[in-house]
């Protein structure tokens, strides 16, 4: 249970405060309601590039990191398809420095040409490091493209292609800031050794003077129902074949999400999970297999990915996965499987609340999804899923006509055979 209080500034900035006096630290988390899904299809990767630029100096402060480090703080940020989130921790006694820093970059950036030029290069290196220069890295460029035809989840956060990043210009940067980086498009969460009064006073001082903006109403295209199986084969310089299957499922706050998360757990989480026992241990078809969801806000994907054992064909691997999935659709999961999956989930939620940073981030994410109150309803939502619910949901999702399958072939194997 995370206790918190909340208020909204006249400029629309939502503020949430969680007090935890067991720590000498404080955490400040600012979530901006903008992600890769809000990008122009011709200028993808921009939300993430922009996140880098947020560290390139604001209107009154030349160097964000420098100042924060002087205050004993540490920070980072991430961008995903749905949101951009900035977080920092520092000794609670220096909390005002965090307000000074974060409010200044919400007010305006320095928009330095040098920063744009350098961060373009940095992001290009990041692109190479994560997607191009490591085995199987481009799966996450290709698979979403296959699964989504209309919705902007078809491109990854880093961008569709390197060229989009190379061609970003200062005009784009300024327009993006104007559009999305305003108080009424943000959620501020302060957690740790702070009081509500203290946070209120600091908000009045540092954030209240920032004028409201007019963030656009989000009108994203709805992905039409997939009606036919989709297949893609790639051949790459990797040592072993791999398979990826992506099934369309519900949105983050749908009941579907909770059912599919539990199913993923039952299928591949740990030494007692179904696919691990059957496909890795008994049949030895895979060296590893994983089921997971992307936790996207809009309707997402349920993914099964596996690396094949020596001598196993992609077709045989695919059939074996489908056979296991068929069992889930034909009969309810066993009571004890369900119970274990739920208990594990409950326990990991309790462990995750050990950190003020995790708590702050979760409060911000649930607030943008609808209400921060939901952070304390998560456990219940998982507990409420019944074996029948899971069967119904799995039957809806698990269907080859609802699936995009990627065969990722090893080039050396293909030539060798």
């Amino acid at each position, binding site marked *: 249970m995370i206790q918190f209080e909340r208020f909204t500034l006249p400029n629309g900035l939502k503020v949430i405060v969680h007090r935890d006096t*067991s*720590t*000498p*630290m404080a955490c400040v988390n600012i979530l901006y309601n903008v992600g890769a899904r809000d990008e122009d299809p011709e200028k993808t990767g921009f939300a993430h590039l922009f996140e880098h630029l947020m560290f390139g100096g604001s209107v*009154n*402060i030349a160097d964000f990191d420098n*100042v924060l*480090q*002087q*205050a*004993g703080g*540490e920070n980072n940020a991430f961008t995903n398809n749905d949101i951009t989130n900035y977080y920092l921790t520092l*000794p*609670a*006694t*220096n*909390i*005002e*420095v965090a307000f*000074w820093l974060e409010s200044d970059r919400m*007010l305006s950036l320095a928009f330095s040409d040098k920063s744009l030029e*350098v*961060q*373009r*290069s*940095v992001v*290009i*290196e990041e692109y*190479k*490091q994560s997607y*191009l*220069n490591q*085995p*199987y890295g481009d799966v996450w460029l290709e698979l979403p493209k296959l699964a989504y035809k209309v919705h902007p989840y078809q491109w990854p956060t880093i961008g569709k292609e390197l060229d989009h990043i190379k061609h970003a210009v200062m005009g784009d940067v300024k327009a993006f800031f104007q559009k999305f980086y305003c108080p009424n498009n943000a959620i501020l969460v302060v957690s740790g050794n702070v009081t509500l009064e203290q946070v209120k006073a600091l908000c009045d001082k*540092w954030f209240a*003077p920032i004028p409201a903006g007019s963030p656009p109403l989000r009108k994203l295209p709805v992905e039409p129902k997939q009606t036919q199986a989709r297949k893609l084969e790639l051949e790459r*310089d*990797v*040592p*072993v074949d791999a398979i990826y299957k992506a099934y369309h499922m519900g949105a983050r706050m749908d009941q579907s999400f909770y059912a599919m998360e539990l199913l993923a757990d039952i299928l591949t989480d*740990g*030494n*007692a999970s179904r696919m691990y*026992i059957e496909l*890795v241990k008994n049949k030895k078809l895979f*060296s*590893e297999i994983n089921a997971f969801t992307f936790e996207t806000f809009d309707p997402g994907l349920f993914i099964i990915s596996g690396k094949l*054992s*020596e001598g196993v064909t992609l077709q045989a691997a695919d059939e074996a996965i489908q056979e296991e999935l068929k069992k889930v659709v034909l009969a309810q999961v066993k009571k004890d499987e369900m119970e274990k999956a739920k*208990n*594990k*989930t*409950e*326990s*990991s939620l*309790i*462990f995750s*609340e*050990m*950190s003020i940073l995790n708590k702050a981030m979760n409060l911000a994410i649930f607030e943008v999804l609808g209400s921060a109150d939901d952070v304390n309803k998560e456990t219940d939502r998982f507990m409420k899923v019944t074996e029948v619910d899971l069967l119904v949901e799995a039957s809806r999702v698990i269907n080859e006509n609802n699936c995009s399958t990627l065969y990722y072939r090893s080039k050396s194997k293909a030539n060798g055979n």
Partner: protein
Amino acid sequence: METETKLDRVTMPALGKPSKIDIIHATETKLANGIPVYSVNGGTQDVVKIELIFPAGSRQQELPLVADTTNVLLEEGTTKHNSEEIASLLDYYGAFLETSAHHDYATVSLYSLGKHFSKVLPVLEEIVKQPAFAQDEIDVYLTNKKQRFIVEEKKGRVVAARNFPALLFGNNHPYGHTTKIEEFDTIKKENLAAFHKGHYSSNACTIILAGKIKDQVFNSIGDNFGGNDWKTADAQVNGKPAELQPSAEKKHYMPKDKALQSAIRMGRVLFLKNHPDAIPFQILNVILGGYFGSRLMSNIREDKGYTYGISSGVVFLKEAGYFQIASEVGSDVCDKALVEIYKEMDRLCTETIPEAELQLVKNYLRGNVLRSMDGPFALAERFKQVWLHGLDYSYYEKYISTVADITAAQLKDIACKYLQKDSIYELVVGAKKA
């Protein structure tokens, strides 16, 4: 608007008075059989972590991969329950295991909700005392591990990380050995069973506890681990003595066709954690590459855009310490990046660190100490990190006072002593230069 005109957004708000750093010490008790139990009680959540530490690392093994494989295989079945049954028992209570083998030691940890602790502890007892090392489990594990090893070998940074220690220590030294693919085929069930018998025993075990620790927790631990049933006549605490055989050549290059980035590792052997220069060098390391605002990050990422990230670090093992820099840079700018890295090391030897930069790093490190001691799990880790090196909490007091008192002149001396260019080993893994 009136308040806006008055608000000074240019001057940094005054920093709060640095809060006194209270280091909460672990308390020591002993089980009936003499096993020391160090515990840190605290936190807001009703959770417990118990960590069993054994001298069962790669330094203690006779054959490659035995320490690691023994450690992992503990979870894969006992004389009473198979791997699936063990996992099921723990899953049911939402508990989870974590095993890890290092150079000097290996650990088996159990995380549990406080209310279920006494129900899952017998599972930990069973896997530690009675692992089965069944042949089919060993085969499945090694086959799959070998495949992952091959996949990882495709990554330049992994190749660099795997091969760099051999340059510093020599391939026959336990800290320097680079695993070879054929070594996966040499491990036998007998090796694992023998290694387990000699190293996972009550007379070689230490326990660290963290979380909300109630009396009941101690009683359970006494019941499950306090007996003499798992004592061994000759617990092998120390590995065989090893001789340093560093590479004669300092600069090394390993080709990787068509790589878009080159992986860089640079560094040298240093000293033990108890050496008088250990703390000053760590502070110097932070300035060079140990935080986001470091000189390497500022120059090579934030000024030149050659990389997504570059960092340096100090590793303290029981019998040696070393320093290393790691990065992946664009293939076309690799040479330029190397020049800049040497330049930054050289600047630390020839130029005095500006006062503002030093003060910033001091403040940052003070905050870091607070952060690293936040919560019972973090505090338990701090205890472990001194205990492993035969040190005590005075190390942290010394660290805090050194951070407060060290001068730029002292850091320059340290840099001159340890960062001379000709003492630095260099490994580049990447595409052949044009």
